[in-house]
């Protein structure tokens, strides 16, 4: 709490103060940035801020723009996001403001003015998805629709190679490819049926499910699984990518499903254990035995 400042404007407070609250917080953030600090600013939600802008624009009797938002909504959002950044101070030191905003589009429709205005200016986007939430795949961030443009920066590549190792980015990229492939196959299965696709399609699909369940999903209710430090992420990602890279020996798709469900369950139990605890290693051992049953040696 000592490093936290909360600017709270509840929904019943005056509309002008709701509109001002992001600016108040950004000003405080910039103050600390000029002291050479790294500041994280989170706004929940910028859609409510846009609602306040809409209400004020209406009161000023401006002609309404799309969905009755002010015509310059996109410019206002852009100007605000531009205040985030990494700066050189006059004394040569550096400071930064990282801005994380949440957008709550009406009915999950991403083609609405606030989302569009935000996507134009933000470099990074986490798409929360109703379908994932319905299936209790939490956090409900769609791995395919979400993106970070920073991973394309050579500076970032260099940094992450030093921080973790140089295999990290290619590995993440491979993971995305598996997920994409899994999604394509799922669509095929929906059209052609389980029998309509070859067994290795099922294998590829279930590999993407392993990634989804073990790497992407976390249980916020569980003390251990709720937080996954970088070292543990690295360990689990290596483990899962190793599972994905192998070929397996299956007679039919039912075996594939049954087998990978057991794999997923063991990995999930690992996620619930203290990292490298006896229990954790025990599940790892069981997992290795299970993998040895079906994996075809490279």
């Amino acid at each position, binding site marked *: 709490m000592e490093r936290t400042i909360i600017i*709270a404007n*509840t*929904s*019943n407070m005056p*509309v002008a103060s709701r509109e001002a609250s992001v600016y108040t917080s950004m000003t405080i953030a910039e103050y600390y940035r000029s002291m050479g600090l790294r500041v994280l600013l989170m706004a929940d*939600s910028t*859609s*409510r801020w846009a*609602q*306040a802008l*809409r*209400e004020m*624009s*209406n*009161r000023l*009797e*401006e*002609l*309404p723009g799309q*969905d*009755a938002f002010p015509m310059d909504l996109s410019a206002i959002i852009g100007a605000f996001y531009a205040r985030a950044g990494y700066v050189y101070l006059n004394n040569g030191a550096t400071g930064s403001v990282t801005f994380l905003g949440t957008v*709550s589009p*009406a*009915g999950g*429709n991403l083609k609405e003015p606030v989302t569009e205005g935000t996507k134009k200016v933000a470099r990074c986007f986490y798409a929360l998805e*109703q379908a994932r*939430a*319905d*299936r*209790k*795949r*939490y956090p409900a961030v769609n791995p395919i629709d979400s993106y970070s443009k920073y991973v394309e920066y050579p500076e970032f590549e260099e940094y992450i190679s030093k921080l973790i190792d140089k295999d990290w980015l290619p590995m993440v990229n491979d993971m995305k490819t598996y997920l994409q492939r899994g999604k394509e196959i799922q669509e095929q299965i*929906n059209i052609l*049926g*389980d*029998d*309509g696709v070859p067994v290795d399609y099922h294998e590829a699909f279930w590999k993407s499910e392993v990634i989804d*369940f073990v790497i992407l999903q976390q*249980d*916020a*209710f*569980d003390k251990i699984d709720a937080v996954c430090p970088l070292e543990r992420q690295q360990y689990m990602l290596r483990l899962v990518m190793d599972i994905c890279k192998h070929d397996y020996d299956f007679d039919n798709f*039912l075996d594939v*499903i049954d087998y990978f*469900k*057991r794999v*997923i*369950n*063991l990995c*999930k*139990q690992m996620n*619930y254990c203290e990292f490298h605890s006896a229990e954790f290693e025990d599940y790892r051992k069981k997992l290795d035995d299970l993998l040895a049953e079906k994996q075809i040696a490279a």
Partner: protein
Amino acid sequence: MAATVNGKLAQVVKIIGDEVTLQVFQGTEGIPTNAEVVFLGKAPSLKVSDQLAGRFFNAYGEPIDGGPAIEGKEVEIGGPSVNPVRRKQPSELIATGIAGIDLNNTLVSGQKIPFFADPDQPYNQVMANVALRAEADKIILGGMGLTNDDYLYFKNVFSNAGVLDHIVSFVNTTENPPVERLLIPDMALTAAEYFAVEKHEKVLVLLTDMTLYADALAIVSNRMDQIPSKDSMPGSLYSDLAKIYEKAVQFPESIGGGSITIIAVTTLSGGDITHAIPDNTGYITEGQLYLRRDSEIGKVIVDPFRSLSRLKQLVAGKKTREDHPQVMNAAVRLYADAANAKTKKENGFDLTDYDNRCLDFARDYSREILAIDVNINTVQMLDVAWTLFGKYFKPEEVNIKAALVEKYWPKA
């Protein structure tokens, strides 16, 4: 400030220079140009005391049940809501016996949550059920544009259950002038504040239907020549709704406790949640509940998919049994797998053994836990869920933490 125009109650809505705009609640029909205007020198108000309990009132707070007028302290309605720093984080479960709520979307005292329902869904019946089963000291019903049938339904259900003595109702029926509806939420919440603040009671406020409230706001804004905002709603819709919902509060024990929980109904047009009314509501409230008719069992359930209580994590597994969060998620995950299996079946594909087991599970889960006519407590809900897991699945198919599986998995 309140006023009367030829005896009809009105409210000042705008003052520019020496020009005053009055909103006449009953409508302006029949008001002559030489009408007499009397300013009452006070805002619309309600007399509050313990005598409110068990009574029915109209939008002006006048008894409509033939009983005597209320004696008590006169309080202006529509006062400010509680400062966030004076509140306590909601953390007490309100059990309703409805699994779609208790198990999957736990209701917490001090929460504000609407039902998003289509007009043909039995939302008022579900609300009445919640009111009867919820462990609350007082229940305040705010009915806006209720049909007379629904009004009588509420009245009969409450009297038959013998609970009328802890229910206070403010009712505006469909034939009453729509603008009068605007007073209902403030009347209901003023009564709620009396019981929560002065008597430290656990108060549940039911507001139905907020869509008709918003429609009345739109009428006023239109008459005042305001530029319409999205869906012809007034530009201030968000603020107007927030003023109501933000009255939900949990007081800390240090000042004696007490809480106001708001359950509202927002009817949708053809399930459209992008409309300005549900959209604005969703920003303010702490989740939303949807009803759905499950064709497998022919009964209404609280939809396990789109429904959400944003405060459930404050009580699930903390005030309820430890396995609650994992069981709730595992069951809905399997229910989602069943929905996939159903699509597969409808498309004419063969189902796997797992698909069939999911379908059987979903049917039992729906019938024995989710159906709104089932009335069991959370421990029973969890036990039934484990029984169903054991009946249809292997532990590795439900992905629940091993320690919990060991403790609760039904022994063969």
